C-alpha cells in the first residue's frame, strides 16, 4: 500500500533504520496488556535513543553530539510517533540545544550530557504553586518518570520565561495519564531546584519554539499515518453482510477523507521541515497535522467497531497521543489564531499604505 512508504525528510537510510529499530521496541502489545509506560518503557526507550546517538543529534560536535539538522531529527521523530516511542525526545533533543546558549555554563554542561543520553527533560504544563514551606509544586509534569530536569514556560506580560529545574531532591507522585505513552506526575521540587532562567520577548520565544512546533507536527503525521494504515488493513479483512467492509462506500469515503487530510499534512510538514525559520510554515504545518491526526485517529477507532473501543486493541493509543500533542505548547487553536492574525494584520497594513499612496493622487484601486 502506497501509504506505508514514507519519504524521508533527509536520508532514507536513517529513516528506515529508525523505523526498524523503533518497530522492534514498540510498546503497543505490552501497553494493550495493561503495562505502565513509566515503568516498562521510559528507561528502555531512552536507553535505545541514547545508544542510537539520537539524543545528541542536534548537539554540536564540539559538545559530543552529531551536529545534524532538523530534517534528520524529523525522520526519527515521525517514526517515534508512528511507533509510540515513550519519552520526551523532541523536547530534550531539539528544544534544549536551542535554549542551551541562553543558559550559559549550565547549558554547556547539559548539552554534553544530552549527547551522552543522560539528560531527559520533563515539561511542566500546569501553573506551579508554592507550598507552605515555600517549595515549588508542579501539579502536572509530562514525561516526569526518570526526568532529571523539568522545563517550565512562564507566559508573562511582554514575553516568556524558560525556567529549568533539576529534580534532585524532589518528591514526585505518579498520576494516571490520559495518554498511556506519556507518564505524568505531580512534582514538588527541592528549594534550590531552579538552575537556569531566561526571559525573552514574544518574538524570540516564538523563534525558540519553532523547531518544537515543527517536530510536533512531524510526530502528529507519524501518529496519523500509523492509525490510518491500521484502519485500512482492518477494513480490507473484516467481513460483515458477507462482504469485506472496505467495500461499503461510507467506509471508503471516510478513508478517502483521511487520505486527503494526511496528504495535506505531509506536504505542509515537509515544507516546514525544509524551511525551518519560517513562522507561517511551522505554525500552519502544526495546525494542519493536528487536524489530520485528530480526525484520523478517531476514525481509526470508529472503523474498528467494538474492538476499537477496547483497551486491548491499540487504536486508542494513537487517539490519546494525538490529543496530547494537539494541546501541547499552547495548543493548535492558539497557533491558528496567531497565524491568522498575522495574515490579517499584514494585509490590512499594506492596504493602508497603498490607500495612502492612492490618496496622494496616483495609483488606481480596483
Amino acid at each position, binding site marked *: 500500500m502506497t501509504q506505508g512508504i514514507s519519504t524521508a525528510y533527509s536520508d532514507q537510510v536513517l529513516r528506515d533504520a529508525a523505523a526498524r529499530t523503533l518497530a522492534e521496541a514498540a510498546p503497543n502489545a505490552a501497553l494493550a496488556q495493561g503495562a505502565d509506560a513509566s515503568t516498562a518503557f521510559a528507561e528502555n526507550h531512552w536507553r535505545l535513543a541514547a545508544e542510537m546517538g539520537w539524543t545528541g543529534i542536534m548537539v554540536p560536535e564540539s559538545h559530543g553530539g552529531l551536529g545534524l539538522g532538523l530534517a534528520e531529527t524529523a525522520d526519527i521523530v515521525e517514526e517515534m510517533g508512528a511507533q509510540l516511542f515513550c519519552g520526551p525526545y523532541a523536547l530534550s533533543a531539539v528544544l534544549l540545544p536551542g535554549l542551551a546558549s541562553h543558559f550559559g555554563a549550565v547549558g554547556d554542561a547539559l548539552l554534553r550530557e544530552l549527547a551522552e543520553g543522560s539528560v531527559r527533560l520533563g515539561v511542566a504544563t500546569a501553573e506551579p504553586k508554592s507550598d507552605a514551606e515555600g517549595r515549588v509544586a508542579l501539579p502536572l509534569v509530562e514525561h516526569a518518570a526518570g526526568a532529571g530536569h523539568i522545563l517550565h514556560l512562564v507566559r508573562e506580560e511582554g514575553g516568556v520565561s524558560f525556567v529549568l529545574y533539576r529534580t534532585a531532591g524532589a518528591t514526585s507522585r505518579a498520576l494516571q495519564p490520559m495518554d498511556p505513552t506519556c507518564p505524568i506526575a505531580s512534582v514538588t521540587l527541592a528549594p534550590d531546584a531552579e538552575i537556569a532562567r531566561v526571559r525573552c520577548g514574544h518574538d524570540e520565544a516564538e523563534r525558540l519554539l519553532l523547531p518544537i512546533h515543527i517536530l510536533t507536527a512531524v510526530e502528529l503525521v507519524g501518529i496519523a499515518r500509523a492509525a490510518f494504515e491500521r484502519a485500512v488493513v482492518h477494513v480490507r479483512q473484516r467481513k460483515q453482510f458477507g462482504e469485506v467492509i472496505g467495500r461499503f462506500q461510507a467506509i471508503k469515503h471516510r478513508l478517502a477523507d483521511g487520505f*486527503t487530510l494526511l496528504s495535506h499534512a505531509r506536504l505542509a510538514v515537509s515544507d516546514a521541515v525544509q524551511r525551518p525559520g519560517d513562522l507561517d510554515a511551522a505554525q500552519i504545518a502544526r495546525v494542519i497535522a493536528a487536524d489530520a491526526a485528530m480526525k484520523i485517529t478517531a476514525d481509526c477507532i470508529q472503523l474498528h467497531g467494538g474492538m476499537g473501543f477496547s483497551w486491548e486493541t491499540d487504536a486508542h493509543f494513537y487517539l490519546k497521543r494525538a490529543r496530547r500533542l494537539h494541546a501541547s505548547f499552547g495548543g493548535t487553536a492558539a497557533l491558528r489564531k496567531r497565524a491568522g492574525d498575522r*495574515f490579517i494584520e499584514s494585509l490590512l497594513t499594506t492596504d493602508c499604505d497603498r490607500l495612502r499612496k492612492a490618496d496622494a493622487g496616483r495609483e488606481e484601486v480596483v
Partner: protein
Amino acid sequence: MNALSAKTASSPAAILAASTDEAFRAGIKAWFAQELPRLAGDRYRAAEMQRLAFRREWEDHVCRSGLSGLGWSEAVGGRPLSLTRQAIYHQEYARAKAPLAVNLIGHGIVGPTLIAFGSQEQKDRFIPKLLSNEEIWCQGYSEPNSGSDLASLATRAERRGDVYVLNGQKIWTSFSHLGDWCFLLARTSSEGPRQRGISVFLVDMRLPGIRVRPIRQITGEADYGEVFFDDVEVPVACRLGEENAGWGIAMAAANFERGTYFIPRIVRLQTELEDLVRLAATTERDGRPVIHDPLVRDAIARLFCDAHALRLHADRMLKQAEEGVPPGVEGSAVKLLWSETHQRLFDLAMDIMGPAFQYGPQEKLAPAEGLWHRDYLWTRAETILAGTSEIQRNIIAERGLELPR
C-alpha cells in the same frame, strides 16, 4: 515620479522571451496593469469585468496580442513556456483581477488534446483559430442518463460513407449557446466493454440538426445548456483518433485540466481570501468592523491554513508535471480540498455581509455589485463538475487505497 517616467509595458513577445522568471513576472504584471484598464475603460470595475461580453472581449485581446498557446510547441504556432512561467502567468492574471476565460475548454482541453492526438490536417484546421480565439469550444460529455457514470453514454454516431450520423442529447454543456465547436463523446459501438465503444468527434455547432437550449442556473445566468442532435452529419475527418478509441483520449484530456483548470483556480483563491479580509474590514456590524469578530477571524485563519496547503499542492503538481510524473490520486485530494475550501470561503463572505446577503446576484445594491453573491452560488457547482466529490472519494479509495469496488 512624474508623467515622463510613466512606463509602458513591453510587448508580449518580449515578455515571453524574458531572460529570468522574475523579469517575466514583472513584465506580465505590467502588461496586465496597462491593458486591462485600457480595454475596460469605464467598465474597469470587478463586477463589470466579469460580464460575459467583456470576458470575451478581453480574451480576444489577450489571444490576439500573442498570449495564447502558452506552453504549446512552435510547430503548431504555439509559444513554448516553462510550466513555472505558466504558473507565474496565472498568478499575475489572478492578481490583476482579470476576468475568467470563456474559451476555457478550447485553450485548456481541446488544444492540448488536438496537439497530442489530432491529425496534421486537424491541427492545421483548428489550432490557428484557437490561438486567435475565433472559435469557442464546448464539451459534450454529460447526458441526461449519463453523468458520473460517463461510460454509459448513449448518444450514437453511425458511420454512413464519409459521414457519421449523430443522434442523441447532451446536457449541462457549458457555453453551448456560444460554442462554435463541440468536443463530443459518442457511442460508435455497443459491443464489448462500454468504454471500448466510444469515439471523440469535433462537431461544428452550426450543422443542420443541432438545437441548443440554454438552461438557467442557480446564479440566474444561463451559461450551460442542452444540445439535441437529430440526424446530424459529421464528416469522418472530424473524428479525433481512431474509432472506438475515445475513452483513452477523454482520460488524457482530463489530465490536461490539472494544469489549466486547478492551478489558476488555486491561485485565484488566495486573492479571493485577501478580498474577504478587506470585506470584513470594511463591513460594520453593531458599530464595529466585522474583522474584530473572533469567530470571523478564526474562520479566516482556517481558510488561510487551507490556502497554504493548496499552494503547496499546486507547487507540487507543477513540479511533478515538469518532471513528467503522471498525476496520481492526489489530484482528487486537491480537487476535494479546493472545492470545499472555496465553498467555505464564500459561505463566510455571506456571513460577513449580514442582511446584505439577501440581495440577488444581479442586484446593483449588493456589495461589489453582487460578485460575492454570484460566486457564493457558483461554488456549489464546483463539488459537482469535473467529477463530483463523491466520485473523487471513490477514486481515492479504489485506486489509491485499493479497496474493493
